[in-house]
């Protein structure tokens, strides 16, 4: 997540809004964003009811949490890129930025 913060200006230049979503509460987000990450300025959203992760098909029933995944949505609201991650894998901002620039 801090890796995306470092490239936020490049996403903004590509007319793209970055948002983080997880099933943690907003209070947990706040503590995490301030301490662990040295400040995250893009929105971190709390899907505490698991409605959004279920809509995207990435709800992890065993943990009542979500899988790691990245979606790129274009201006028309169409999904243009999907990447899911296994244990220990994280999204690469350079790769995601390159995909955004293709739109």
């Amino acid at each position, binding site marked *: 997540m801090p890796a995306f913060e470092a490239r936020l200006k490049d996403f903004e230049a590509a007319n793209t*809004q*970055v948002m*983080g979503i997880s099933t943690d509460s907003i209070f947990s987000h706040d503590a995490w964003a301030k301490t662990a990450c040295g400040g995250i300025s893009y929105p971190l959203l709390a*899907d505490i009811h698991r409605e959004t992760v279920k809509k995207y*098909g990435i709800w992890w029933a065993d943990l009542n949490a979500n899988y790691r995944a990245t979606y*790129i*949505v274009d201006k028309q*609201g*169409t999904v243009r890129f999907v990447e899911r991650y296994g244990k220990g894998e994280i999204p690469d901002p350079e790769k995601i930025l390159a995909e955004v620039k293709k739109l």
Partner: protein
Amino acid sequence: MTTQTEVKVGDAAPDFKLQGIGGKEYTLGEFKGKKNAVLLFYVLDWTPG
């Protein structure tokens, strides 16, 4: 087990309305026609990534 349908490339992205830090609500729909969006679904705040 709940059957889930995975969102795929070419699908209409499901809209959402979620609260961020500070209580501000965000929707995906508010960017329609204006901006692309990158949605980073991540797991458990205190884990790396």
